[in-house]
């Protein structure tokens, strides 16, 4: 195991300069959750337009993995349908469980998080934002 697998450039970049980290006036849904293990906390705001994720932002605090994952999430799901966003969340969770080999195109920056698989304690950090997103979309995942 090498730390470089975990703390890839792109992850640190999302962590230090998070995308779409702000409140969302006009949000149609907002959900919040925390990971009691490390005190990470994430709120996802989304403006749903019909069946489409018209806009999505997040707020919160936590470790680099949880924050970078949430930041990437806002980019990856922007403009997708609810069904597509939910499917992506499920694929992402599959990647974390080691059962899904991610499609680099669909995943974009998210592929960088693959290194987390080797650090089981951190998987919950990476998944937190996605849990919140699914809840916001009305498609809650089992824990």
């Amino acid at each position: 195991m090498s730390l470089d697998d975990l703390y890839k450039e792109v992850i640190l970049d999302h962590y230090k300069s998070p995308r779409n980290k702000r409140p969302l006036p006009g949000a149609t849904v907002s959900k919040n959750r925390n990971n009691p293990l490390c005190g990470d906390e994430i709120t996802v705001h989304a403006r749903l337009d019909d069946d489409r994720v018209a806009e999505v932002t997040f707020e919160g605090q936590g470790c680099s993995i949880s924050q970078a994952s949430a930041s990437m999430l806002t980019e990856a799901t922007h403009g997708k349908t609810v069904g597509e966003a939910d499917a992506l969340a499920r694929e992402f969770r599959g990647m974390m469980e080691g059962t899904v080999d991610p499609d680099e195109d669909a995943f974009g920056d998210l592929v960088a998080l693959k290194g987390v698989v080797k650090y089981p304690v951190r998987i919950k950090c990476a998944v937190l934002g996605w849990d919140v997103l699914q809840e916001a979309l009305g498609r809650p995942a089992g824990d």
Partner: protein
Amino acid sequence: MAAVEEAALDAKRIREDFPILSREMSGKPLVYLDSAATSQKPRRVIQAVTEFYERSNANVHRGVYELGAEATELFEGARATIAGFLGAPEPNSFVFTRGSTESINLVAHAWGRRFLEDGDQVLLTELEHHSNIVPWQLCARDTGAELSYVPITDDGLIDLDAVAASFTGRTRLVAITGQSNVLGTRPPIREIAEMAHEAGAKILVDAAQFASHNPVDVVELDVDFLTVAGHKMLGPTASGGLYGRPELLEEMDPFLGGGEMIMEVHPSTSTYKEPPWKFEAGTMNIAQEIGLAAAVDYLTEIGMKNVADHERELTAYALERLTAAGATVFGTHDPDLRGGAISFWFEDIHPHDLAQVLGDQGVAIRAGHHCAQILMRRLGVPATARASFHVYSTPEDVDALVEGLEAARQVFG
């Protein structure tokens, strides 16, 4: 460096007794700074367990044959050793349990649900570990008692005036940590016990951390209950227990029901043995308590005063070096008022990331809420990084920690 010149104990020599300390982690020599979570075990403790299984294993209290008598003697001998270590007036005032958590739950059931009534108050502090909170919440739910929390000072200390102000006419129990697992703070137990008794209340001390790092004398402290976590004091996992004032143990309800804690069983009722056996249902953690007695012998040989002094020296050194490196250390910086669980925050790096980078350097520290969410909220942080010590910890371990911080600064800076 002062700490080395006048060392309270020879940690370097002691390290040789702990097999795990010669292993590597992440390809680097292991620097174990997470003893507040669980301590490592000296060879002698591991051997006591092995020898029990290889030579004396039998169930206790019931066997007529020599092997059974031998096992019983070792087990009850362990009780005498551990009770003596705590200054308990008699071996039978020490009940075996799996650790501090089970001990507190035992009191919350056998004493709490028996004697607490609607509107009674249980007084905790903002320092408490979840294991000294949640059992009382469940007990309060069942009895109607209420919980309140003595606030800490900004330095993480328990102020006697604040304690006094927290008593109500209905205070029945003060349940308080002997030493915080987050800040290292040691509340003045002797004085609080006196206040509790004057108010007609009992006092329980969660000594999970306290008893593993300081001399303890339950009679001098004048406490009613004191809980012990064997795995934090060089003993096996699943060892530990509860000291209880004999009169109180006497009048308490049973806790778990089952074999060995009974006198007579009839279809709908039973009669129970005397304490401590009344609280020891079924087959107990026999090998583990025998291992804990070996740990207690080991600590006694070193001397608990030396253990405490060593801890103070290391704490002073760590406070100095961490602060110099730019870390914010929570709680008092006076090493006379605290033990060696040191929570800190380093720059903008989340504790979890910090622990990860340190782990990669072979340095094991803990990051998180340390089972103390109430305290985290009071400190205004989601989590802290924590380094903690035991007899085998050295100034070099602290040096490795500080070097690791530099590595983290490079990744996240």
